[in-house]
């Protein structure tokens, strides 16, 4: 149930870029799929994600296997759109009419979904969450609130262990994990959510006291020990962002297919 896709350190391609540069590239992909109208542009964006995956030392085959559920859901989206949109010329019918506009809309949405998800997962693969959280703080967000993300990411492994412990304890005690009724659903939620939450809340005070003891929040600004400098790969990533932005503008202006 825990997703297989998570960050791992690397030395190739986007692994060498700073989190901010990777974030910029991700936003470029989002802009191109949400703002550019054409199918070819979206296909190109998906191709670029695959190329960057390969250049970053991540196997394209493994990546595609990891996103197989995304591919499946993209197909479901395609079908949902193709059968819902009635505008355009009817091409064929099997109970429901399928139009050229419907197929086009289906392809648009499926590709949009595919690019958003694949670029997101590539970002997750190549970006160190901890460095990202610190980078966000350095972007100018008040550190008191930026630190919430740093802290939350620190808590994640702990809660994953707690969650696993709770589930194993349930199995040992014979708690039925299947959900066949609303009562079963309520029981599953109650027996899973509450223990994990309570185990976390018991630590709030000790963490807060520890932070206060280190004078967290004393000054309005905070210095950092680790600074990020932009290197060649960051400029390449920024150039890709500009390229994606330019393609979006051109695709809209000249109504590219």
């Amino acid at each position, binding site marked *: 149930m825990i997703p297989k896709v998570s*960050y791992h350190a690397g030395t190739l391609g986007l692994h060498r870029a700073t989190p901010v540069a990777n974030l910029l590239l991700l936003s470029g992909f989002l802009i191109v799929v949400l703002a550019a109208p054409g199918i070819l542009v979206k296909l190109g964006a998906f191709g670029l994600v695959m190329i960057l995956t390969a250049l970053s030392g991540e196997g394209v085959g493994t990546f595609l296997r990891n996103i197989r559920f995304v591919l499946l859901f993209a197909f479901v989206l395609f079908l949902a759109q193709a059968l819902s949109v009635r505008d355009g010329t009817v091409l064929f019918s099997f109970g429901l009419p399928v139009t050229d506009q419907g197929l086009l809309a289906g392809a648009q*949405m499926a590709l949009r*979904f595919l690019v958003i998800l694949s670029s997101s997962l590539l970002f997750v693969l190549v970006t160190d969450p901890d460095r990202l959280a610190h980078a966000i703080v350095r972007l100018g967000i008040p550190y008191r609130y930026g630190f919430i993300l740093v*802290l*939350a990411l620190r808590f994640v492994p702990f809660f994953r262990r707690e969650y696993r412990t709770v589930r194993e304890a349930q199995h040992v005690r014979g708690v039925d994990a299947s959900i066949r009724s609303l009562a079963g659903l309520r029981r599953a*939620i109650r027996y*899973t959510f509450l223990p994990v939450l309570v185990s976390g809340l018991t630590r709030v005070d000790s963490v807060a006291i520890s*932070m206060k003891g280190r004078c967290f929040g004393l000054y309005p600004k905070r210095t950092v020990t680790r600074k990020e400098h932009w290197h060649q790969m960051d400029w390449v990533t920024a150039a890709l962002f500009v390229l994606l932005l330019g393609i979006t503008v051109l695709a809209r202006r000249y*109504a590219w297919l």
Partner: protein
Amino acid sequence: MCALARAKRPLLDVREVVLVALLAAVGGVLSTYVGYIGNLINRLFGVPFGAGQLIAGLHILWPILARLLTAKFGSGTLTGVTKGVVEFLSGGTHGVVIVLISFVEGLLVDLGMGISRRSSLVLTMLTGAIASASNVFLFQAIYFAGVSPTFILVMAALSLVSGAFFGGYLGWDIRRFLIASRLVPQRATATPRASSLRGHILTLTVVLALLAGGIYYYTSVYDPFSAPDSARIEGALSSPYTFCYSDWEDKAVMVTAELLGSSTYVPPQDYTGIPLADLLERAQPKEGAQTVLVIAEDGYEVSFDLPAVLGDETVILSLDRGRLRLIATGYEGSYWVRRVRKIVVR
């Protein structure tokens, strides 16, 4: 000692910062479990997606709990957006979109709970319902643009009920349990600063009105990248398309028209442009369509009777300083729309 030195009181104190981070982390980690339950429910109903909205409320439990436990505006939004980032970075199945969805859910929790200075079960359930349903409309805008409104409304209704119970009621119940078991001090849940209910309602109304206006403008009207001499022709049409003036120049006609506005008068002069009737005929209006809306890039719109426009070759779209302008011969000045961006048939 260190805390005493602080001059300005921040929105959240250190304990609340930890609490928000903790709730966001739990929410992010358990979201995979919620997704798993959602898939089980989908399988139970035999559908690929949609039925999982029955438990959509579990996603907003965390911002609601943060708002109930800290009683501070902003804690819901911070919890929502942090939970979204945690979920995204954990390789969640929604990608980066989840950050936006969680942010909106958290913001709605803050706005909803901010209506009254005293939290109540009804308000919490209502807030949970609205915040939960927002995910359906956001997903619709991003991935399900063409899906039938009935389907979307059914999903929203499921999400609304789920938000009320799994978000609002469960959140309220958990808070009561936490107070009873002394895991959370009673005082932490009291509202620190009282302000008038009327003021909150007024603020909320203004914010929602501005938000609705902004969302409408940026999703339906604003289009910074499209060519200035183009307009989208859509609505009740068999073949909606994007009209580009340069593609139609050979079909241009000349008309003589006089602009009679309430404050502007332009004497009769010649205008060259493409008849609106020709543009609409190419798009094939569907049976039953009655009106045609001509919308400018700033959202200004005028409405024409469709049969009248289809039989009138003197209402034309001309090019005025590189932008589309409607020359509505025989109509008053307010119908002469400048910077036309969209034509919608209804």
